[in-house]
């Protein structure tokens, strides 16, 4: 029982990170209808930006902010330079999907050139672990969970209650209709990708902190699990994606703890295949049609 609770505790950390990554991915999908295969690279860029800033300033807070900023910038760049151009031409989404895969290649290897392929690590002290109820967490673990909850709450407020949030929902439901109603769909899409990038960049930083080491390709590996969570939640639905992420994150931690962490990806894809084949709209099919239920 003790072991199970420990595993649950670690699973909550993974789930927190996964939910941020998955929500960001879903936001990207919602406003452009594009499954961004280079989403993982936003996390990787965030992790490296944090490394550079941390080595220079020694401040974890500055590193976190740098990660978010870098993520936002790279996501916006992806959108403007590649995705948006294809969308304006009316290219089928499958083609854009392929293009984002090429983009992933490019970004990963640019990082190899700049930083080298070897593993890097932060020298951020995580502090000794301590018991919090039945869970064994370090100070950093707690920060990760708390910040994930805070960011999620902020996103909820923005999406549900602000003017921008309303525009976002309109564009994701029906881009043409939104444009006709006077919303600048392109601007909304760009802003959403930037926002998603901020979240994903920060997720990259905490992911790298949590694992302990990272390379230019670590974002892509995590992305495959993000994809599972996003599809399980329902492509394009932000909040059910979050629930999906929590479930997948905890399930993975239990699988890794009791069976073998080596097969994690295989397990994740097993879930993914099952969901796609049985309930392709996502596990929470009874949700209402609009995007953010």
């Amino acid at each position, binding site marked *: 029982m003790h072991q199970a609770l420990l595993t649950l505790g670690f699973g909550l950390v993974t789930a927190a990170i996964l939910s941020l990554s998955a929500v960001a991915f879903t936001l990207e999908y919602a406003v452009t209808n594009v499954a961004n295969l280079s989403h993982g690279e936003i996390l990787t860029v965030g992790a490296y930006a944090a490394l550079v800033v941390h080595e220079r300033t020694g401040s974890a807070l500055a590193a976190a902010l740098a990660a978010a900023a870098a993520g936002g910038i790279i996501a916006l760049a992806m959108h403007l330079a590649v995705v948006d151009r294809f969308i304006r031409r009316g290219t089928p989404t499958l083609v854009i999907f392929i293009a984002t895969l090429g983009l992933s290649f490019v970004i990963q290897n640019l990082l190899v050139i700049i930083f080298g392929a070897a*593993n890097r*690590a932060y020298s951020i002290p995580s502090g000794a672990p301590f018991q919090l109820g039945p869970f064994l967490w370090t100070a950093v673990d707690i920060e990760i969970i708390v910040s994930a909850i805070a960011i999620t709450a902020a996103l909820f407020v923005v999406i549900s209650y602000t003017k921008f949030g309303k525009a976002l929902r309109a564009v994701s439901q029906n881009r043409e209709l939104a444009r006709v109603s006077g919303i600048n769909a392109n601007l909304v899409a760009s802003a959403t990708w930037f926002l998603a990038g901020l979240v994903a960049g920060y997720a990259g930083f905490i992911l790298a902190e949590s694992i302990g*080491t990272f390379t230019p390709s670590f974002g892509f590996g995590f992305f495959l699990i993000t994809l599972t969570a996003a599809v399980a939640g329902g492509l394009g639905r932000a909040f059910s994606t979050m629930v999906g992420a929590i479930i997948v994150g905890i399930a993975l931690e239990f699988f890794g703890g009791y069976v073998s*962490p080596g097969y994690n990806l295989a397990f994740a894809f097993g879930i993914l295949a099952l969901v796609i084949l049985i309930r392709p709209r996502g596990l929470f099919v009874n949700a209402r049609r609009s995007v953010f239920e």
Partner: protein
Amino acid sequence: MVGTHRRLLSGSVGVALLLAACGGSTPSTGGKQPTGPVTMGVLSCFTGSLASLGNAMLQGSQMAQRAINDAGGILGKQLMLSHADTQCDEADSVPAVRKLLSDSNVVGIIGPETQEINAVAPIVSAAKIPTQFQGGSTAFDHNANPYLWRDSPSDSQLGVAMALYAYEKGYRSAGLLFYSDIAAQTFADPITATWAKLGGTIAVRITDLAPGQTSYRTQVQKVIAAKPDVIFTQTDAPTAAVLFKNFQELDNLAIPFVGTDVTGGDDYLKAITWPVAHDHLISVYGTSVSGAATDEFNRIFALLFPGPDQPQANANYAYDAVISQALAVDKANSINGPDVNAAMTAVSNPPGTACYTYKTCLDLVKAGTKINYEGASGDLNYNKYNNVFGPYAAFQETLAGQQTPVQTMTAAQLAAATP
């Protein structure tokens, strides 16, 4: 349309067979002198998680190259070093070694590592070029291939050294934590056997850690629960980073680690960070014998790489490999593979006049004296399996990122502890 294609098809097959029949004859370099600079190829991983091994090999080779060229070269020609990246795996090592062998003046290969030797061995034997294997695999302890040599002691000896060091520190209960890579598998048995002979117990044994995972908490908890005094370990750098993180989370790194030459490598130490390495890790690996050869080794290092850095772990073996191989070429007075190979033991095994630097050895060879090269890393006296034995030391990482020896174990001490 189809007819043309069919003719094209049979034509190309015919040409290929024709080429195979009369083309590509073995370049005969029988007893001949080099037509230009002599080459040795360094074959190892220069990228990837074990890149520190290749870099160390190259460093040692470059030092030997300097010593050799300063003394006039090999058979009067300068020595060039070529290198090829195997990425520490078999599939990439094959085109890499082929690239090195394509040079017509190649007289020797330095490398590869344990991961690649199975794929490389048939190729270098067929090409009849002496090859200095730099890996520690215990399977090589009974090597029967005449073209493969190893001038560094086997991991069976490294295992003995690790156990001896830990026992003398006062530890009595040990855990084994190795990853599934073939190069790490060879440690478990020598460590266990030596540990038992000395009187210690093994509390937990994990030798199949899958590399590159994002969490090892289950295995780490298992190790902690067994309460060992010390943990013997080797994994690659990325795995180590995650492992140490997990240990930090679960027991605040309470148990000390004793590692190998891999754990003393640059990438590994950077991955777990220097302060952690300083406080919790000792790496055991072969060291240099004190004496004239090591003095020469250090002199050249200071010449080529001025600054505070120390020579990388295992660079001394590559250095000795190149020097002894060069001497064999000089002795055989030929760059023909089989001739050089036959001269290998003639320059480094007793009896003979002991010499410690390339220059002095070369002068003796030219004068017709039988020499016995005693290297920086050991006496290079090959046994019938083309293996050698030598001293080891325990190294600690300083906070400035250098490895410093804290204890030495001689070949004799190790022989006494060997079960």
